[in-house]
């Protein structure tokens, strides 16, 4: 089934000055469509975390929003180093963020766990040396 609404954002590597712009735009559009309350806030948190991950860890990627009648879907797809140990990456407090990221206050190691906690459906696939794709679903009642 085709999504009724779709939007795509390119996120560049290490672009800290623009970090958060895509997720702010996603939140604005969802409000105007009529997605509100708890779902809106959870999508806002998850999209911010995944956008930041693209900035901090990847070599650049695409953040896609798909809206279906009963589901809001967020897909993050990047080119990058990939995640060697997925289990460790999903642990709270574990971070592979570099010097620059930490100096700006990022790299607390809460990104992926936050995403998983806020999404109703969470799937992550990664290949070392190639890239990572994260698919999150948020159910609309």
């Amino acid at each position, binding site marked *: 089934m085709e999504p*009724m*609404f779709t*939007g795509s954002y390119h996120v560049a590597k290490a672009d800290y000055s623009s970090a958060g712009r895509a997720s*702010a735009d996603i*939140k604005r*559009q969802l*409000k*105007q*469509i*009529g*997605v*509100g*309350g*708890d779902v*809106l*806030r959870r999508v*806002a*948190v998850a999209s*911010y975390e995944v956008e930041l991950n693209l900035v901090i860890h990847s070599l650049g990627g695409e953040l896609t929003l798909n*809206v279906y*009648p009963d589901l809001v879907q967020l897909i993050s797809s990047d080119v990058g180093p990939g995640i060697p140990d997925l289990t460790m990456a999903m642990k709270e407090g574990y971070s592979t963020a570099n010097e620059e990221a930490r100096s700006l206050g990022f790299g607390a190691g809460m990104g992926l766990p936050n995403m998983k906690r806020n999404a109703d459906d969470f799937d992550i696939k990664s290949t070392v040396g190639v890239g990572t794709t994260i698919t999150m679903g948020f159910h609309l009642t």
Partner: protein
Amino acid sequence: MEERPYHSVHLAKDLCKGCTNCLKHCPTEAIRVRGGRAHILDAFCIDCGECIRVCENHAKVAVTDPISMIKEFKYAIALPAPSLYGQFRGLLNPEYVIEALRCVGFADVYEVARGADVVTRAIREKLKQPDLPRPLISSACPAVVRLIQIRFPDLLDNVVDIRQPMEVAATIAKAEFVKKNNCDPKDVGCFFITPCPAKMTVIRRPLGQKKSGVDGAISILEMYGLLLPYVERMMNDPSYSPATKYGVAWSTSDGEANAVCPGNSLSVDGINNVIRVLEEVENYKLTDLAYFEGNACLGGCVGGPLTFENNYVAKNTIRQMVNQMPEVHPDKDVPTSILNKYPTKNDVDILPGDAIKLDDNMAEAMKKMNRMNEIIERLPGYDCGSCGSPTCRSFAEDIVRGYCTEMDCIHIMRDKLKIMAQQMVELAQSERS
């Protein structure tokens, strides 16, 4: 026909030049310029008064009640906002202002700062409850509450469900006056001396209450000149329970936060700053915070568009005044009997506004959103305001809502005219041959 929701901010049509000043400064994009003059969109206007501040032609005004209205009641009680005290440079004692109000025709005066003391206690009682939303958001600034209704409706559950100091003051003032003077409540009118239009609006269109206990609002600007000669005289203490320094400090930003939750609160002033921080609250970025105080005006209420004195000077006046008032906290000074006797909680819920949605039907809204994004691609992106909408994005939204067409964009029209001119030349040439 459905009645238009009341707003105190109005346009004086004859003075409006149809420029783009207010259009570009409205924090909720509630203004459009069509037919050579500004129009305020009722559903988006929060009565913050930014347009009043920026209009160079004095065409934007707040319609408040005239002082002559007090004559409609046998007894008129003045409810001065504490920001009124900050209007008189060098004033160290609020009692002079209180006595001056009696001199200009009010039968009695009840300090809204005292209402703020009662509300401080009520909020502090609430903060003792477990499982409160983080942060709890102050309901004191009606412009900020309306902003939340329209733009951050998911944060309405965080807004504390306690009445504004003005309302609590009106309830207590009226009850105590009636009891003391043994008169008919219908003969008593309460008048708030206001620094801003938002508080005028909330009297006619209450937030969280079925009906306001206040009968009218007179602007500080109108009262200042009348009070000044009297303030300059020494007067006796009236016999009433005076406000503490904490209640008086509610007139400046962080006064409320300092009274209610000094350990873990944040005060933000200026409507655009409030918007930015509420975005962060919405993103769950401030969940360690217990209390949030948002003020539409810089400096807090002393910076209201209907005040006389410069907001920094007024804030300083309040600070000097507060520094030499006795150290008494509402926790000790407001007896529990007052909390039990007079209502301090809302009696209706504050509901979200849905003007921001493109359509009530989500599928339709998505279709409109798609059309909107498509149109934006074709627009020049100058945000010039010539079409009468504040930005190219809001112009695309207006097209999709059916309020205007693409040709209202002068840049698109100019490009089309160039093509048409070229076509006319070609037509003329082909006819000749």
